[in-house]
């Protein structure tokens, strides 16, 4: 079953007097439980596509359906609610809240959601910190962590609300290759464990190799989709 359905989407940005065609008619389906990589060179439209899937942006034409909801018909408020409850985000630059500790950063989406008791929140956060190997750093501020550790915090934060879909835009771009690999492994593990759907963009071939499918984009168009065997993406 498709958790995300992108139907003939274009996205045009107006920069001053010129128009930038970031996407020129993209159609794509993401199946539940997939670990999908969106690949392509810089400026190919990867980030734009992820923004549309993540409901932080809406298409100029076409439709994006996330979990059965047509995002083009939702209000700004409803889109925010949708993001809060169904989507997790991992950013290229980690984007942690600098004034909050690791624990508080992970807890943050739960507080935004509300309705979780402090016990439940603590249990969920601690479980994720354990899973991401950050238990010892729970009281640290992001500035006290390495890049890889920060991205682990981001992974934990993306997963804490138990979203159906996690989007990661170039999650390894700011990390060295070994750390990047570790992060991808972590994401893959979570994908396997909970069946959470992951969509991540990258232009790094080694990172792509971990995915079970690669959607290739160039010049705002999907130029191909390859299915990879599960074994090939396995963690060694």
């Amino acid at each position: 079953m498709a958790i995300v359905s992108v139907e003939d989407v274009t996205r045009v940005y107006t920069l001053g007097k010129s128009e930038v065609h970031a996407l020129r008619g993209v159609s794509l389906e993401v199946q539940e439980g997939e670990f999908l990589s969106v690949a392509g060179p810089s400026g190919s439209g990867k980030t734009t596509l992820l923004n549309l899937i993540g409901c932080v942006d809406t298409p100029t034409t076409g439709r994006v359906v996330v979990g059965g909801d047509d995002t083009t018909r939702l209000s700004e408020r409803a889109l925010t609610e949708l993001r809060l409850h169904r989507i997790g985000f991992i950013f290229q630059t980690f984007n942690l809240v600098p004034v909050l500790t690791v624990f508080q950063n992970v807890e943050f989406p739960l507080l935004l959601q509300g309705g979780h008791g402090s016990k439940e929140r603590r249990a969920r956060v601690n479980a994720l910190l354990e899973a991401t190997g950050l238990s010892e750093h729970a009281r640290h501020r992001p500035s006290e962590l390495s890049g890889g550790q920060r991205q682990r915090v981001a992974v934990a934060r993306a997963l804490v609300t138990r979203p159906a879909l996690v989007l990661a835009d170039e999650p390894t771009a700011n990390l060295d290759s070994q750390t990047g690999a570790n992060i991808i492994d972590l994401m893959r593990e979570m994908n396997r464990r909970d069946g959470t759907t992951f969509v991540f963009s990258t232009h790094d071939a080694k990172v792509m190799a971990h995915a079970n499918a690669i959607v290739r984009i160039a010049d705002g168009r999907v130029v191909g989709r390859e299915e990879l065997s599960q074994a090939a993406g396995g963690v060694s």
Partner: protein
Amino acid sequence: MTSPGTKWWQAGLVVRLGLRNLAASRAKTLIIGGIILLGAALVVVGSSLLESVDRGMRSSIQGSLGGHLQVYDARSKDELALYGGMMGEPQLEPIEDFSKVKAALVNVPNVAKVVPMGIDQAMVSIGNQFDVALERLRADVRVRPAGGADPAIERRYQARKAHLRRMVGILRDDLAQARQIADLQGRDAAERRRAWEDLGRASSPEFWDHFDDDPLAGLEFLENRVAPQALDGGFTFVRYVGTDLDAFFRAFDRVQVVEGTRVPPGQRGILLGKWYAEEWLKLRAAHKLDQIERARRVQRRRLDRDEELARWARDAAGQTREIQLQLDPIAAEDAASRLARALGVTGPGERDLPKLLAQLFAVNEANFDRHYRIFYDTLAPLLQLYSIRVGDTITIQAPNKTGYMSSVNVKVYGFIQFRGLEQSGLAGVMSLMDLISFRALYGYPTAERTREIRELQAAAGVRDVSREEAEAALFGSADGAVSEQREAPIDDAQVLAGVRRPREREELSDRPFTQEETDRGVVLNAAILLKDPSKLARTARDVDAAAKAAGLNLEVVDWQKASGLIGQSVTLFRIVLYTAVLIVFLVALVIINNAMVMATLQRVKEIGTMRAIGAQRRFVLAMLLVESVTAGVVFGAIGAAVGACAVWLLRRAGGIPATNDQLYFFFSGPALLPRLGTTSLAVSLAIVVVVGVLSGLYPALLAMRVTPVEAMAAEE
């Protein structure tokens, strides 16, 4: 999706984030906080000062003249202005019968006292040295037995005669200079020529050689033909309130008699303002010294650095002729030897009074205190420092309602001041006079008074301003006169006995009057004192209603309005202060706004991230507002505390000194002791919170518009 608990959790999160952000960006917080702190401190100090001035003014006006309410005739052309208006005294319609007003108002609940008043200005003759000398000589003539049996009296008589002769000489020299520029061909040329001839005759040796043949005729000639030509002395203006003096003293507890006594009940009399006496009746040289002394003491000004003080010192030095004229030859001798001793002068200069005076008045920063003391310890006891003294009867003249000059003689019973307002010209210039005399001057006399005035007018033409002690002196070139007169003893008691002759006018002004006479007659306004001043507005309405019910057409105003421009100046201060505060906070608003916008722009990514992971716009808005409001409240409270401390310290340090007359009145005393007002605290905190919210609002709105896409931006 949104449970009731959501908001609670979010509120906690918002506050936590806001506080953490404040703590995280310390520099920004400190800049914004510093500005808010300063602003709050300014508001607290400023409004505390303002409240204190307001209180001081209230106390000054209510305690000196205003009471709580004032009534005056509603048909008046001008508004009541107790301390004078821009164009002199306001034109008020007279209230013809005060007793009706009193009867109507005294029964209004909360009205404690109704004090009748009439405020006006008039001229007072302060006489001149020539008149004084003539009067002395006339007294001597009267006690001098024919043939000059008593050598002591004879010597004194001769000394005074010589003194007067010298004065005539000085007058002739003065007028000779005036003739150079006078128009001798004009309308009154004949009169002028005659006057000059009279003066010539009076200064001729023949006149004085034959003076003893008929001294009374000689005096008559000098009084009628020569004395009017003397230029010094003359008139000063006195501002007075004609009132029921006993009621006034009961109603205004600030008024106190500093010298002399109160006017006995039922007697006519005037109590002169002490400040007025200092300012206008005091020997000019002494007054200048006082001014310098006060400026140095209160304002910490210095003679060597302050051009104005130096000018006052020169003025004082230029007024010593007045002192010399006042001292008779014997007193002058005494003064010279005392001064020489005090100043440490020996040798040929020790008898030269003009030189000694010049030396005394050559004051500088180093010697001022010593010379000031010498003046008051050594010289002042020999001088008549004030041209009007307790016990004198003075002639007051004013144009009355019919356009003629009214003139009354009133006895000076004493000098008054208003406690706490001793140095204030506004209050201190005021003299108190009985209502009967006021009415005579005002020109609404009773039938009885009309008869008295006729008698007064009949008696007019005889000047009898008494001068018991002041004796004109002659110095400088008149060496012969000095040596001749030095040993002449003066028996003051005998002199006084001679002056104190029974006078018809004094009898008239001594005739007692009744309370009914005081009440039934013209007044211009009336002060109303309340039992409970806090119910002022309501009582004002009641008074208005009571006046209307009694058929009286009265205007009722509160003390502030009644005080005219003075009362409005507090309002002016308030406007100035609030404008200043407004400007400060507008500037603060801009600066804070700017800093917050900058800070917000730096946090676009963070905010975008929050938005991306599911924070609603209002969450972002609330987070930023919490930041600015918290900064506003915390630093505002600290600022208010700092301001309160400043007020407290100012108070402990003795307050702000009143460095001039006006401030003295506004402060209601020699210094403004600011007191922290609850109003000022509340106002400052309210303003600070409003400024905090307003300055944070724009950046918060800006932050609210940050899109989640911003979170995706690749650059760090």
